[in-house]
Structure formats: structure tokens, C-alpha cells
């Protein structure tokens, strides 16, 4: 004891110093990782060159020469592989974003249902969760897809529940407003209304915090969002012409089509993921002690305000982190699309790999795209999580 106290750091060798040693370990580890990475990559390049396997990303500019079933941007077989892959990414984004939105709403509703004091509603919620949570999502996709093409008739005998809507095993074809300038103006009007509403709500909240006076911002906002586009429509001469799908040859032409593949994928992913989100929401709400509800009621808040002002803001802090990982799961699961023929990114990349034979580059692209999507979702959800976290004062 005494001797060590008398001999200070001067006598300790530098490799015995805790700090220096830590740095040495980290440097060595980093060097090792870098070396292994370099070794693997250079060897792959070497061996691929020896086996005369083409490498590099030059193929992205070559003509793709294959067709894609669904596309949101202009694409034909004469376009490049790069553009084909972009079509795939957009398809993945389309199903993921719509899926995330729907599954969050559905999951929240079902989560609240399982907690309902109504016996029937809570039991139905529980059954839903148990059923959808415990069936593999791939099986659900196959089921919904088969349901779609087995249950609905061919296009020539298409169901026509309301005029302008046709349901067949080719998907749902519905009428859309025919090309007219008014529609693009209306979109602009809606965007303008959204911006105005956003600032109005902010102003109203600030004013309420300052003066305690309430402002009917909800109804006014709703009025703006619906009214402004409607007004534009009337000003533009109220066009009512429709582009109605009609059976021509093999298929419906005109209107808009939602394919069975897209519907089945969306259904499967949303129903499956919602069952997990329901559990997360239930757990989040239950984590708030009942005293909070009683306290909120005792100061005279209405039931809806108890939920929206007291319970949910606190529950969200518990809900958001696991919710993020479920939403990430939905995005990643969307790659199962390949099994039911929805042309998502994995499918397009798969065809590209097969036609060009460049598996390493193709798989690398897949990893980059999914990593980027996941990280972006994470960043957004983390930002939101921070925003709603308890602000320590």
C-alpha cells in the first residue's frame, strides 16, 4: 500500500497505463478490421478477374431490355439498368410508406381496442393480435395473393359494384378524373392550405399558452384543407369528365389500376405489422399508472382530453422506440414481394444480377438501399422521439 502510494505514475510503464492501453487496443482493432476488409475486397477482385467475371458498376448504363409490371415513372425495356433499379426503389418506397401509414393507424386502433372496457371489442382485438402475430408473414402474403386471383373473376366478368369501379383478378380498376388543368391547380391549392393550417395551428397554440383562449383551429383547418381546393375547382369551371376504365382486348384500359400483387403485399404487411404495433401501443398505455387518469379526471378534463393530453403524450415515450423497429421491419419485409410478383427493388435487382451476372455488385446495391431506407427511418423516428421526450427542467 505504502510503496505504491509513494511511487506515482512516473514509474508505471506506458503499456500499463489504463488510458494508453485503451487507445492501443482500439487502434489495433481498427487496423485489424481495416486489414481484413482490404484482404477480402482485394481477393474478391483478384479472383473475379482470374475467373473473368465482369465487375464494376458500368452495367448500370446499359440497356435493361426487360419490362417491369408496375412503374410510377416512365420506364420501358429500352431504358437503362440504372433507371430500372430506380423504378424498383420507388415501388419499394411506395409500398413501405403507404404500409407504414396504414399499419400505424390500424395498430393504434387495435391496441386501444384490446384495452376497451367493452368485452366484445377487447376480445376481438386480442384475437386479431394473436392470429396475425403468429402466422408467418410470407404465408399471409401467399394467402392474400391467392385469395385475390382465386376469388375474383376474370376481366371479362369483372365485378362492377359501383359505376366506374371494376374488380377482377387483374386488380381494382377505377375511374379517375380525366386530364384537366384544374387538378394540378387543386393540388397546389391543397398544399397552400396545408401551409396556412400549419402556421395557424402554431399561432393558436402559442396564443392559448399565453392567454388561455382557445381557437377553433381544428375545424378551421379542416375547412381550409377541403375548401380551398374545392373553390379552385369551381373557379376552374368545375370539370366533371372522368377517365373510365373500359375492357379493350385482354385488359381494362384507362382509369387507374391497383394490382393484386400490390394489394396482397400491402394487406399482408399492414395486417401482420399492425398486430405487433397493437401490442406496443397496449403496453405503452398500460405503462401509465392509473393515478394519472384519475388525477386528470379530478381536475375536470373530458375523457377525450384525458387520453389526448395526459395519457398519450406519456405513453408515446414508451411506444416510439419499439414502434421504430416494427416500422423498419415492415420496410425490410417488403422485400418478400418477390414471392408474389410485386416488382420491388429486390426483384428488379435480382433480374439485373441474372442478366449481367454481377452478383457482388447487385447484392451490394441491395444492401446499400435497404440500409439507407432503414437509417432514414431511424433518423426520423429518433428525432421524433427526442421531440416528445421529457424535457428536464
Amino acid at each position, binding site marked *: 500500500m505504502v510503496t505504491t502510494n509513494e511511487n506515482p505514475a512516473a514509474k508505471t510503464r506506458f503499456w500499463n497505463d489504463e488510458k494508453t492501453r485503451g487507445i492501443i487496443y482500439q487502434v489495433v482493432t481498427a487496423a485489424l478490421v481495416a486489414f481484413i476488409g482490404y484482404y477480402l475486397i482485394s481477393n474478391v477482385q483478384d479472383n473475379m478477374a482470374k*475467373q473473368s467475371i465482369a465487375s464494376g458498376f458500368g452495367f448500370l448504363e446499359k440497356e435493361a431490355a426487360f419490362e417491369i409490371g408496375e412503374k410510377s415513372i416512365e420506364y420501358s425495356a429500352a431504358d437503362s439498368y440504372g433507371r430500372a433499379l430506380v423504378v424498383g426503389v420507388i415501388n419499394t418506397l411506395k409500398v413501405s410508406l403507404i404500409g407504414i401509414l396504414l399499419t400505424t393507424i390500424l395498430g393504434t386502433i387495435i391496441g386501444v381496442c384490446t384495452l376497451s372496457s367493452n368485452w366484445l371489442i377487447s376480445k376481438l382485438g386480442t384475437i386479431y393480435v394473436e392470429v396475425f402475430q403468429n402466422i408467418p408473414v410470407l404465408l399471409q402474403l401467399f394467402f392474400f395473393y391467392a385469395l385475390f386471383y382465386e376469388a375474383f373473376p376474370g376481366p371479362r366478368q369483372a365485378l362492377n359494384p359501383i359505376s366506374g369501379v371494376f374488380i377482377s383478378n387483374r386488380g381494382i380498376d377505377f375511374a379517375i378524373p380525366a386530364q384537366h388543368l384544374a387538378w394540378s391547380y387543386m393540388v397546389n391549392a391543397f398544399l397552400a392550405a396545408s401551409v396556412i393550417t400549419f402556421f395557424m395551428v402554431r399561432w393558436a397554440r402559442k396564443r392559448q399558452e399565453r392567454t388561455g383562449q382557445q381557437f377553433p383551429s381544428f375545424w378551421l383547418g379542416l375547412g381550409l384543407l377541403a375548401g380551398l381546393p374545392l373553390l379552385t375547382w369551381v373557379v376552374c369551371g368545375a370539370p366533371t369528365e372522368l377517365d373510365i376504365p373500359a375492357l379493350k382486348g385482354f385488359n381494362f384500359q384507362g382509369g387507374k389500376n391497383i394490382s393484386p400483387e400490390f394489394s396482397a403485399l400491402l394487406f399482408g404487411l399492414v395486417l401482420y405489422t399492425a398486430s405487433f404495433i397493437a401490442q406496443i401501443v397496449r403496453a405503452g398505455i398500460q405503462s401509465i399508472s392509473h393515478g394519472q387518469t384519475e388525477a386528470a379526471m379530478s381536475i375536470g378534463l373530458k375523457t377525450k382530453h384525458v387520453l389526448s393530453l395526459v395519457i398519450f403524450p406519456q405513453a408515446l415515450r414508451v411506444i416510439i422506440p419499439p414502434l421504430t423497429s416494427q416500422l423498419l421491419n415492415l420496410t425490410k419485409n417488403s422485400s418478400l414481394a418477390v414471392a408474389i410478383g410485386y416488382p420491388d427493388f429486390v426483384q428488379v435487382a435480382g433480374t439485373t444480377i441474372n442478366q449481367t451476372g454481377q452478383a457482388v455488385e447487385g447484392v451490394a446495391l441491395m444492401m446499400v438501399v435497404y440500409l439507407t431506407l432503414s437509417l432514414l427511418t431511424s433518423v426520423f423516428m429518433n428525432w421524433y422521439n427526442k421531440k416528445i421526450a421529457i424535457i428536464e427542467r
Partner: protein
Amino acid sequence: MRHFKSLFIGCTLLLSSAGLVFAGNGDTLKAVQAKGYIQAGVNGDLFGFGKADQKGVWKGLDVDTARAVAVAVFGDLKDRVRYTPLTAKTRFTALQSKEIDLLTRNATQTLGRDTSLGLDFVQVNYYDGQGFMIPKALGVKGAKELGGATVCVLPGTTTEQNAADFFRSNNMDWKTVTIESTAELSQAFFAGRCDVMTSDASQLAAIRASSPKPDSYMILPDIISKEPLAPAVRHGDNQWKDIVNYSVLTMINAEEFGITSKNVDEMVKSKDPKIQRFLGVTAGNGKALGLDEKFAYNIIKQVGNYGEVFERNVGVNTPLGIERGLNALWTNGGLMYSPPFK
């Protein structure tokens, strides 16, 4: 979940090609002899070409081709071939990454594949072409009437490209439905999801045979592409390539000589020097390939000649009911032709 397999194989390729030394001349034969069997990549889902029956016995033209190679190498068939079912997407990667020794999975030989995939194709074992299958009720007589149709296509094959080329060059609109597994795709087609299904004509015949009502479907007479289906080996091992090549050619040559699995024992006694050389009575061919002198005899005895293999798996008396057509011997107006065995 098959696409995960491509991802997996992609990663395996990345890792294995990093650690392994590249295969040189003769390496594959040595490795195969050391382990005692050939690992063959086959379709796994294609009746008539590569599919296991209810008892788990592998059957098909491609399977028999792999067997012929195994017999050439080992002289017998006691567990000498093990099969890896591969999808269209994973097949070439599996060969490149040495997961398999030989690819006999109805793969079309093309310039692109021959040059940029690190593999070599050998003698074609089936001359195919892409066609269209439609429900008879559709009332379509030719492929040119298919404008606006929804078409079921298998992804990751030359099929996608051929179909796109066909519709493009004829200025016709079309919609594709692309599903990875043949079984799922056929089910969607039979349920009416698509108006047309396109693939190699042999494959369409197999799918039609597996449908609940084969008679209500027909294959259009139009053939829109050339699909020489050939076994493939890794680029760089020329000895192994020769062995596989001449195993296929042995079956073709045997048919030309009129030697079958039934009469081969009499033909050995033939006085014809060409047959004596072919069957190894006169030594030379075996040594040149690094095989037993009786490899041709063994192949014919245990697997059969090309005609036998064809008729057994896909011929007119099978549910596929395919005529010899292009696959007849050159002497009968087909394309099957073997260089001399000398």
C-alpha cells in the same frame, strides 16, 4: 424466401472467393474423386428435366446428364451424384462459388454468359425455344395477336428479355407479372391472373402437364427465340470441361451408332473399329480424358443413349409429349451431332 438464398450465395461468393485459390486445370476431377461424388446443380422444380419424384428419386434429362458424367468418372452410380436444386437466379453463382461441380439446369448458352460469368458451356443437351401458352378459351391463334395481354414470366432468365424484345419489335403493349417460383407462377396463371404464360417451350409443356386441366391450355406455334440448353462448368478447368462435354457427346454418338443400354454388351463384340474405339475395346480415349477406358460403355449401359434418355424423360410417351424436332440426330434432320471419338 428464395431471394435470401441469392443474397446468401452472393455473400458466400464474396467470402469463399476471398479465401480460396482459383481452380486450375484438373482440380475439379481430383476434388470430385476425393469426395467420391459429384455435386450437380439442377432445377428441382421442372418435370422432365430435373425434379425428384414422390419417392425422392431424382428424374429428368438434366439429371441423367449429371448421372452420365458421374458414371464416366466413377464407373458406377452408387450415390455418386448429389443434387442442389437452384433457382434461375442462383444457378451461376452456385457454380462460381464452387458450391456445385457441374450445372445441368436447363441453362441457355449465350455469348454474355459464356464470357462474363466465369463459366464454360459444353455440348447442348436440349435445343429449346421460347413460346407462349394460353388458355384455349382465349381464342388466340398466334403470338402476334397478344397485344395488350398480361403475361406471366419467370424472373431472372433470358425469358424476360426475349419477351420484352418480342413485344417491343412488334410494337405491342403488354403487362408483366413476374413471380420467382415456377409453382407459384403457374398457379397464378391457371387461376387466370395472366392471359399468357411465356417460357421455354419444353418448360411450358412440363407446366401444362402439371395443370389440373392440361387439355384446356395450348402452346402457340410461334417460337420467339433460340434456347440451346447446355450443361456448364467453371472456366479454367479444361480437363473437367472435356469430361463433361464428352459424357454428353457419348450419349449422342451411341444413338448414332445404334448402341443402346440393352444391346451394348453385344456391341462390345463388334468388329467395327470405330465402335471398338468408342466403347474402349481399343484403348486410348479414356486415357486422353483421364478416365477409365470403359467410360463410354458405362454411360450407355447405366444411363442409356441420348434417344433413350430423351424418350424416357420428355418424349411423346411421357406426360410432356415432346417430339424430337431439333433434338433428333443430324441424320434424322435434327441438330444432335457428335464429333468422332478417336
